[in-house]
């Protein structure tokens, strides 16, 4: 199982950050997982109070 968190690929069962790099076994396994018809969940990112404040003033 994988999720997309802050634009990054995260394997959820072992909490692994996976760069998009064809040379990496972890990324190849992610592509194989997608080829099998699976879809990574995009997780909502909680904004920090400062980020919210910045957003509110712009």
């Amino acid at each position, binding site marked *: 199982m994988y999720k997309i968190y802050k634009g990054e690929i995260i394997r959820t069962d072992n909490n692994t950050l996976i760069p998009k790099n064809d040379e*990496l076994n972890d990324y190849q*396994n992610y592509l194989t997982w997608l080829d099998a018809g699976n879809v990574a969940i995009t997780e909502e990112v909680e904004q920090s109070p400062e980020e919210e404040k910045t957003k509110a003033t712009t």
Partner: protein
Amino acid sequence: MQKIGDITPTADANGEWTNGSVAGGTPPTIIDAAWLNTVQRELINVLKAAGITPDPTKDDQVITALAGYFLQAANNLSEIKTAGATAQGAARTNIGAAAVAGLVAQVFSVAPATLATHAPQACQMTGRNRLINPRFVVNQRSYASGATLALSSYGMDGWKASTAGSSMTFSALPAGQQVTIAGSFLQIVLAYDIEPGTYTLSWAGTSQARVYNVGASAPSYASSPITVAVSGGVNVNVEFNAGTLFTPQLEIGGVATTPERRLYQQEFALCQQRLFGLNLAGAQAVYGGAGTYISLSVYAPVSLRTNTSISLGSTSMTINQPGVGTAFTTTATPTAVGATSNMIAFNISGNWSGLSNGAPVIISSAAGITLFSSEP
């Protein structure tokens, strides 16, 4: 050779010369031309055998001929040295035949073994085995003996399951350990370790194996040893099927040599180029995003072959900000890899709060080993 006793009855009972005894009725031995010729022919033959033509003006031809036959102990074989490189090579071959000649070739020219007799010498050289962790002594993932693995998941360092549900069963031995494979495992030998040429894969155990370029069709499995031509330029799969396996070795040349024995520290460093682990407890970071992440960087023990995936040892992590307090998270998640070689910068997102934003913190508690993988 004729003795004087073979020529004249005037010799004594031993066939040797005698001065005789007139009073006793024993005649002295006659000096016979036939015996003198015998002695002369013997000396002439010494010269002929040495390729020397008799020269009536010289009287040192016999000793010259003998000097060509014998080495003088006091000279310590300097006669061979003086004779030149060809003679030296011939002498080495002659005294030890091919084995000694092979020793010279392997030690000084580091040529691939081409004869079985090269094996005893080649086994003294390190760097022959293109496989890492062939004795199954490095296990940074703490892979449990017999645990089943998903397809393309790594177990012992360097070895990953090439069929779903594969496992390795092992027990530690001082100089490495034999494993028993269920399913199949492969190791990817990186292209930069495979120059074009003929390679031999050998191993102990009942597993069968195959060697082929990554992306190419897999050939049939075969028993040890396997000799294959490798074109180079691409990664190579070395794959073993079910059975026992110990000391697999992939080496250039057409002959299997004695398994190389590397020190554990060497083996560990080879493995760390693809995977290394750190306990992040004690690492310094910067607290940012008003409690949503910390930023830190770690220094890889060896330069990695490419950028890494990062697998946190635990999603629980406590950080401490000196003079301020501590914060704890249960949803730590790595994000944003920032480097590719030996300095790895990344963030860990979490739900920390209450600390001073933008200030240094120490990760005071982080269970498990965080793994940095650039495994192919």
